[in-house]
C-alpha cells in the first residue's frame, strides 16, 4: 500500500508542478498589469507549437519521386532524405533526437517577442477598461491564435517524441533502496517536475534578488508610488508580460512529449489554471504555486479506485469542490491580499 500512496503522491507533485507553472504566469500578468489574461492558455499552446515547428525544420526532408516504384495504392513512390542529417551528420541526428530541449532555447526569444507585441499592440489599450472587456479581448486573442495554428498545422494532434535516452520509466524505488520495479515513474515527467521547479525558483529569485525584480514587486504593490519615484513602471510590466509568456511557452514546449499538441491544448489548462489562481489568491505568486501543488495532489489521490469507491465520481469534481470550500472559508483564497479586484 505504501508504494501505491507514494506513487500517487509523486503523480500529484508532477501534476501540481504543471498547474503551478501555468498559474504562475497567469498571476504574473494579473499581479502586474491587473489584467485577467484568458490568452494565457494560447501562449502555452504557442509554446507547444514552437516545439512542433522546430521539429518540422529539423526533420525537413528532400522528396524525390521514383516513378519506377509504386506505393501500395498505385502512386509513384516518394523517396525521402532527411536534410539536417545530410548537412550536419551525427550532430544533426542528435538535434532531431533532442528537438524538444532545443526548442526551449528557441522558444524563449520567440515567446518574449510574442508577449511584448501582444501587450504593446493590444492589451495595453484595455487597462482602463472594465475587467469584462479585458476578458473578452484576451479570450478573443486566444481564439484567433488557435484558429491561426489550426489553419497552419491542421486539427489533429502532432506527436513530439522525447529524446530516446529519456523515454521509459525510472525505477525510483531502486534508487531509494527498495525492491526493483515497485516504484517507477516516467523519466520525462520527473524532468518536467524538475524543470517546473527550476523555472518557478528562477522567477522567484529574479523577483526577490534583482533590482528589476524589486521594482516589479514594488509596482505590483503600489504602482503610483513607484511612478512618482521616477520609474517607468509600464515598461517593466511590459517585460513582465513577456516573461509570463515565456513561462507559459516553456511549460507548453516541455509538455509536448506528454501530450501530443493540437491547437486546443491550451484551453484544457486554462480553466484549471484559473481555479488554481483563485484558490491560491488572486495576485499572489506563492499562493499560485501552493494551490497548484495542493490541487494536483488532491486530484491524484481522488482518482484512486479506493477513494472512488467511497465517493463515486470524486475524481472529476475534487478540484472544484476544494475551490468552493476554500473560497467559502477564505474568500480571498489561500494567500490572497485585501483589495485585489475589490473596490
Amino acid at each position, binding site marked *: 500500500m505504501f508504494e501505491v500512496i507514494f506513487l500517487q503522491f509523486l503523480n500529484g507533485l508532477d501534476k501540481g508542478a504543471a498547474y503551478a507553472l501555468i498559474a504562475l504566469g497567469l498571476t504574473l500578468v494579473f499581479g502586474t498589469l491587473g489584467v485577467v489574461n484568458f490568452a494565457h492558455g494560447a501562449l502555452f499552446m504557442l509554446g507547444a507549437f514552437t516545439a512542433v515547428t522546430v521539429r518540422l525544420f529539423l526533420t525537413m526532408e528532400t522528396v524525390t519521386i521514383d516513378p519506377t516504384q509504386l506505393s501500395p495504392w498505385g502512386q509513384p513512390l516518394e523517396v525521402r532524405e532527411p536534410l539536417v542529417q545530410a548537412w550536419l551528420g551525427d550532430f544533426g541526428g542528435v538535434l532531431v533526437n533532442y528537438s524538444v530541449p532545443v526548442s526551449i532555447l528557441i522558444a524563449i526569444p520567440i515567446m518574449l517577442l510574442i508577449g511584448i507585441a501582444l501587450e504593446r499592440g493590444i492589451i495595453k489599450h484595455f487597462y482602463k477598461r472594465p475587467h469584462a472587456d479585458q476578458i473578452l479581448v484576451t479570450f478573443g486573442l486566444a481564439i484567433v491564435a488557435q484558429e491561426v495554428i489550426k489553419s497552419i498545422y491542421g486539427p489533429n494532434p502532432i506527436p513530439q517524441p522525447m529524446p530516446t535516452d529519456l523515454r521509459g520509466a525510472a525505477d525510483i524505488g531502486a534508487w531509494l533502496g527498495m525492491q526493483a520495479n515497485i516504484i517507477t515513474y516516467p523519466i520525462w515527467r520527473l524532468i518536467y517536475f524538475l524543470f517546473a521547479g527550476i523555472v518557478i525558483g528562477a522567477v522567484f529569485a529574479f523577483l526577490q534578488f534583482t*533590482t528589476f525584480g*524589486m*521594482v516589479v*514587486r*514594488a509596482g505590483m*504593490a*503600489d504602482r*503610483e*508610488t*513607484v*511612478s*512618482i*519615484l*521616477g*520609474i*517607468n*513602471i509600464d515598461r517593466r510590466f511590459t517585460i513582465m508580460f513577456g516573461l509570463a509568456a515565456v513561462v507559459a511557452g516553456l511549460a507548453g514546449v516541455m509538455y509536448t512529449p506528454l501530450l501530443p499538441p493540437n491547437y486546443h491544448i491550451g484551453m484544457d489548462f486554462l480553466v484549471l489554471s484559473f481555479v488554481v489562481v483563485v484558490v491560491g489568491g488572486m495576485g499572489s505568486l506563492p499562493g499560485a504555486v501552493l494551490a497548484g501543488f495542493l490541487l494536483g495532489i488532491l486530484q491524484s489521490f481522488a482518482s484512486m479506485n479506493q477513494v472512488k469507491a467511497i465517493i463515486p465520481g470524486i475524481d472529476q469534481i475534487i478540484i472544484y469542490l476544494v475551490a468552493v470550500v476554500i473560497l467559502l472559508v477564505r474568500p480571498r483564497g489561500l494567500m490572497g491580499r485585501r483589495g485585489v479586484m475589490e473596490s
Partner: protein
Amino acid sequence: MSAIAMTSETVVQTPAAEVETSRPFFSVRDVHSYYGESYIVQGVSLDIRKGEILALLGRNGAGKSSTLRTIARTDSPQMRQGEIWLDDQPIHQMKSFEAARAGIQLVPEDRRIIPGLTVEENIALAKVAPGHGWDVEQIYESFPRLAERRKQEGVTLSGGEQQMLAIARALARDLKLLLLDEPYEGLAPVIVHEIERILHSIKPLGITTIIVEQNAVAALKLADRAVILDTGEVVFSGTAKEVLDNAELRHEYLAI
C-alpha cells in the same frame, strides 16, 4: 472680506508682473483637474521662487492634495487644462515618472511605504531611476532610526518612522521641488514635533517646497508664503505672516 480681496489682488499681481521679464522657478498656470466627472481643481495658478517654502492651505475638499497630485502628474486627478513649468521644463506634458525625473518629488498622503519591501529597498527604489540626490549613507546619518531598522519591512515601522522614510525617499532623488502632502497627519503630537524638527533641519538646504497641511499653524511656521484654496480656486495668496496675523481670514477659510 474686502480686506482679503485686496490683499490677494496686490500679492498676485507682483509675480504676474515678473512673468513679463523672466519665468518664475516654478509656476502653475490656470490648472483644471477632474476625478472622473467631478471638477476638483478649478483654475489654480501659483508661482514659487527658488528655495521658497509655500504652505497650501484650505479646508477639507478644497483641492489642496489634488493640486499637489496634479503637479506630480499622477494618473488621477486627470488634468484637462493648464500649464505647469519647473525650471523652464513643461511638466504639464509629462507623465508622473517623467515629472519625477524632472525633479518633482511628492511625499504622498499616508506615506505610501511599499508593502513587502524593507526600509533599505524602499530607499533603493528611489535610486533606480536616473537623477540621484542624497546617498544612502547620508540618509542613514540624518535618520539614524531608519539605519537601525534598515532590514525591517517598511510598513511595520511606526507612523513617524514611515514619514521619515517617505521624506528620505524623496531626498534620495535629485530634487528641485518637494511636495509634502499632509506630513503631520495621523501622528501623535510628540511625533509631529519630530517631523517638524526634520523639516526645519532641511529648510537651510533651500529645497523649493509646497506643503499641504491640515495643521495650518505648523505649516505656516515652516513656510515663507501661503496660498489658500477654497472649492478648487485660489482665494488668498500672501506671506505666511499675513495669514497668521489675519484672524478673519483664518476663521473664514481655515476654521482656526
